[in-house]
């Protein structure tokens, strides 16, 4: 509760400029509308959960925010920079870690962080690499190739890479999926601390609803490429007469129409 209050206070303090603004975002393939007219914002200091069943359009939305997929229409601005028109500045203010975006397995942890630090033109890179390696307990793996690390250790490297440029917007796609409960809690606290300190806003996707309730300030449910529900993850289930967020998630996946009526 204390955390929530703190979080809200910081959100208010930093809410003059959203770190992410998505306006009427649409992506159409030949005869399929993968994402349809999606709009939302992420404020600095806020963690927004992007939820939905497989195929709901989460990854398509994230790919458009990351600039690796061109929207059919709509606008994505990161820290007030249009990704389509000011790609370099917009993308320099974001970073991400996703289970489907593996880091090069044939580089060592240090080499990988150096390469990505240069890609993001991180100032004082050597110092920053030391900081993120310490933060994610990676110092002893500095000279170890990423491919031989456990999946949990690889996730920590991905998170360290995602934090290298101290992004205003951090996109995390199931960041704790392969971590043991203790490390997962630790990672959640660090990421939450990052948001609470007002360093950036976070867009978080997860299928672990307990985690979402614990971490996210607000959630957005996508279904068939459209925003179906939006609200506080603690209050939203009751508003729709569901026991908890997991039950609400299942309803979104199985009978989305019942929730819009």
């Amino acid at each position, binding site marked *: 509760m204390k955390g929530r209050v703190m979080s809200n206070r910081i959100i208010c303090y930093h809410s003059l400029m959203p770190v992410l603004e998505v306006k009427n975002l649409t992506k159409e393939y030949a005869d399929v509308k993968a994402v349809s007219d999606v709009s939302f914002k992420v404020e600095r200091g806020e963690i927004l959960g992007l939820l939905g069943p497989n195929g709901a359009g989460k990854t398509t939305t994230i790919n458009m925010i990351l*600039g690796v*997929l061109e929207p059919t229409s709509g606008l994505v601005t990161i820290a007030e920079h249009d990704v389509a028109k000011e790609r370099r500045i*917009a*993308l320099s203010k974001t970073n991400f870690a996703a289970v489907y975006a593996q880091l090069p397995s*044939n580089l060592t942890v240090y080499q990988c962080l*150096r390469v990505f*630090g240069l890609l993001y033109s991180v100032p004082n890179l050597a110092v920053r690499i030391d900081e993120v390696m310490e933060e994610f307990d990676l110092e002893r793996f500095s000279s170890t190739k990423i491919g031989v690390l456990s999946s949990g250790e690889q996730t920590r490297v991905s998170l360290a*890479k995602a934090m290298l440029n101290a992004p205003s917007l951090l996109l995390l796609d199931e960041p704790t999926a392969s971590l043991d409960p203790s490390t997962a809690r630790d990672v959640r606290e660090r990421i939450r601390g990052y948001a609470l300190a007002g360093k950036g806003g976070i867009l978080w996707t997860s299928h672990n609803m307990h985690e979402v309730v614990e971490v996210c300030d607000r959630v957005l449910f996508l279904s068939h490429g459209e925003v179906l529900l939006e609200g506080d993850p603690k209050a939203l289930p009751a508003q729709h007469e569901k026991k908890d967020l997991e039950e609400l998630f299942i309803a979104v996946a199985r009978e989305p129409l019942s929730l819009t009526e």
Partner: protein
Amino acid sequence: MNFSPAYAIFLRYWYLLVSTPQRFVQIFIWSTFDIVLWGFVTKYLGTFGISGFNFTALLLGSLIFWQFITRIQQGFIMVFLEDSWTRNFINIFASPMTIVEYLSGIVASSLATSAMAIIFGAVVASLLFGLWFPPFVVPFLVFAVILSLFAITLGMISSAIVLRLGPTAEWFAWPIPAVIQPIVGVFYPVSVLPAWAQTIAKLMPPSYIFENLRAVLAGREILWGDLGIAFALSAVYIACAAFLFARTYSWALRTGAISRFGSESF
């Protein structure tokens, strides 16, 4: 242009080279075997040759410069495909790097490995077959610059093909130099080709280079006008290849090919 992302692309491949002996050795191994094989073949042929005509210098010189082209083209595709093989495409293309910086990094990387290969090849040819290239260093540098431009063009076209058709299309990309080789007169004058092939050869910058290489090694004058044509053609082709790659990249962003590159679903 920001040099930091371009250096990142260069460094990413350099790390792989220096940390994996088999990658480092492959820069030299096949070209050395070729030089040794062709060195002995031409030495033998030289015993039947016309006096004053140095088969070994002619063929080995041509071979080394041809390897220079293939190494740059293959080096280019290797750097490009490395991120496909390690499923790192999204991480790379979701960074603030521009496409010019990306291509610059690949070019720097492929030129560096090719320069190492050509220098090593020249040293091996000198040690084993007594060839001495330093008197030709100025024309050879001009040849190398023009061939580099053409090889980078091939690298960009090859990578654009792979980006457009998916990872399995790498098998179209690797043999591109082998398809071009017979037409550009690497080991024989373009005049021995049929008329239609000679017309194509005139559009290929390497054909002018290899004609001039033979002239230089035979003690004849360099045809600077031909080198000018070769340079102009190379400049036009590299601009077209860059445009093709940029268009293919835009297509990949529009269709989502970047984000699902490994799936071969486009």
